[in-house]
């Protein structure tokens, strides 16, 4: 209740029906509102990165079509898991087992396909079912034991990495299982969803028109948009929609903002959290399936440290470590920054060791900025 209404004379009915304008409301400019959005930091960061590399590597081919597809693909892979990590962080939990899950899911695809001669589609289904079951177990343990998800998923980070190594030795007697590529490309599900490019006809046509660069044999350098980029965009739009426009999205924010309050008004807190652990595992498995289909092999060390990169991308994207605030679009810009810097640095004269230095600094700046935004949003003024 504001001070003007407190003074309003409640005995006069005429005045009761008038909603007085609050004299204590300042008009906030739309620019200032935009600055308070969670995506702002990552968008600004992405623009900054583009400007820096535009100057440093503008004539090196980084911004040619093949260069763009190159770093977009890196961003897309990371983007997939950063979406999962971001949504889970908004709900107030972490998943440190994402990276190990990628390795494990990759093996769940590759070993049955190559050694048990399962059709590729069946192995993919199996991997998704297995990963999501493990994600559910993660979530179940977190909501049941009320232990911090940090600890529970840290345990799974080691358990799954160890299992990946042990089981691949047990079944295949090696830690790199190759020969999946052709099987995936010939499979109906693999060729439909996971291998190859989208719009290759269009790209060929553009090549014949001379609009895009071609190799010596007349084929376009870029044969289409890799499926992983399409998956990334679809998943980003889907997750943003759910967060912003559905009941479930409201529950995710509520659960992360204050789980107790959410429970008191009837939000099924445990169900929301558990389903998001499952979603994160789904994202990790999608990463693995796309990678296995693209590279043609699975390796026990795949996805190493990816959980941290995903969380960093989410944090750069404006997600708060304490939950209740964040943006999938922001996380995608975070992933884009990753891709541009990681690939862009090879186009410059800089040693690529600087990549990690840059990442760390970026993370620190993002966290400081996010804290500032949160204070602006939550503290009474």
């Amino acid at each position, binding site marked *: 209740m504001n001070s003007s209404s407190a003074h309003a004379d409640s005995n006069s009915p005429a005045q009761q029906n008038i909603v007085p304008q609050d004299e204590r409301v300042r008009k906030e400019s739309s620019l200032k509102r935009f600055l308070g959005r969670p995506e702002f930091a990552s968008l600004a960061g992405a623009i900054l990165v583009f400007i820096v590399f535009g100057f440093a590597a503008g004539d090196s081919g980084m911004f040619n079509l093949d260069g763009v597809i190159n770093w977009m693909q890196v961003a897309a892979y990371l983007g997939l898991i950063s979406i999962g990590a971001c949504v889970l962080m908004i709900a107030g939990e972490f998943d440190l087992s994402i990276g190990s899950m990628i390795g494990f899911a990759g093996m769940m695809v590759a070993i049955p396909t190559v050694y048990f001669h399962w059709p590729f589609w069946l192995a993919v289904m199996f991997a998704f079912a297995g990963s999501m079951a493990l994600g559910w177990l993660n979530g179940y343990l977190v909501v049941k034991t009320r232990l911090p998800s940090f600890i529970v998923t840290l345990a799974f980070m080691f358990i799954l990495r160890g299992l990946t190594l042990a089981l691949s030795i047990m079944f295949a007697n090696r830690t790199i299982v190759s020969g999946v590529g052709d099987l995936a490309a010939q499979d109906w599900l693999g060729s439909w969803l996971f291998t190859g490019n989208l719009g290759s006809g269009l790209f060929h046509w553009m090549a014949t028109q001379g609009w895009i660069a071609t190799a010596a044999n007349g084929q376009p350098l870029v044969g289409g948009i890799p499926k992983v980029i399409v998956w990334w965009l679809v998943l980003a739009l889907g997750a943003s929609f759910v967060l912003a426009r559905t009941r479930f999205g409201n529950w995710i924010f509520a659960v992360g903002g204050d789980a*107790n309050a959410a429970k008191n008004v009837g939000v099924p807190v445990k169900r929301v959290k558990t389903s998001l652990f499952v979603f994160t595992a789904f994202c990790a498995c999608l990463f693995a399936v796309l990678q296995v289909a693209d590279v043609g092999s699975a390796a026990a060390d795949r996805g190493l440290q990816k959980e941290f990169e995903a969380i960093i991308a989410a944090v750069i994207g404006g997600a708060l470590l304490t939950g*209740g605030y964040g943006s999938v679009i922001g996380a995608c810009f975070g992933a884009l920054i990753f891709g541009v810097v990681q690939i862009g640095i090879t186009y410059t004269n800089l040693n690529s060791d600087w990549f990690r230095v840059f990442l760390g600094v970026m993370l620190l700046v993002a966290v400081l900025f996010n804290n500032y935004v949160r204070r602006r949003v939550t503290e009474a003024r």
Partner: protein
Amino acid sequence: MDDTILALENVSKYFGSVIALQNVTLRLRKGEVHCLLGDNGAGKSTLIKTLAGVHKPSEGQYLVDGQPVSFNSPKEALDVGVATVYQDLALVPLLSVARNFFMGREPTKKVFGITVMDINYAAETARAKLAEMGIMVRDPHHAIGTMSGGEKQCLAIARAIHFGARVLILDEPTAALGVKQSFNVLKLIHKARERGISVIFITHNVHHAYPIGDSFTLLNRGKSMGTFTKDTVSKDEVLDMMAGGAEMQTLMNQLEGIQV
């Protein structure tokens, strides 16, 4: 007896060997503001939780509309229209006014066959319902973290009323508030009464309870010291009973010049 909407009859509650409540009787009439007064440790919290459906009474009966009830969860109490607004208010500071107002009970609509949350409806309804209770919302899409304590309290009460509360249990709604904000909350309680809602107002502040209350039940060390209607008891008498009159008198004599 027939206009009693909610009643506790000789209710006791034990936690192991601890007697939290003993033979407490409380009858809430339709459309009254019933103040529950007691100092710290008097059993107020246990009583609220019993009413809200968190605890079941160890002995005695809990009646709603004259029918004995036994709630297994706060949700069941809510379903018969007994809503409790706790001190933590069950609000999420990072969420907007509209999203908080409808948290857990989001309005939906269909867009191209997909069920989505109707955010505009939520915002308009939240604004309208709060305006009805005399609360002007600056912007229903603003995070409530920026609101004052009194505004949040009012929002939580308005939300409970909007979702069909017939009995409103308010746990120390004025405890953390300044003078003007407390006054706003009291005004809101008055508005709720005008709409026929019965209110149980828990407080230890007689100065807040006395002006708004129709009847007063006093708790002391787990026992009820009786229920008094406003015309049978004065503010000072209430205060005396609450603090254990004689004790307070000695204290006041020691602190000469200080008036409560």
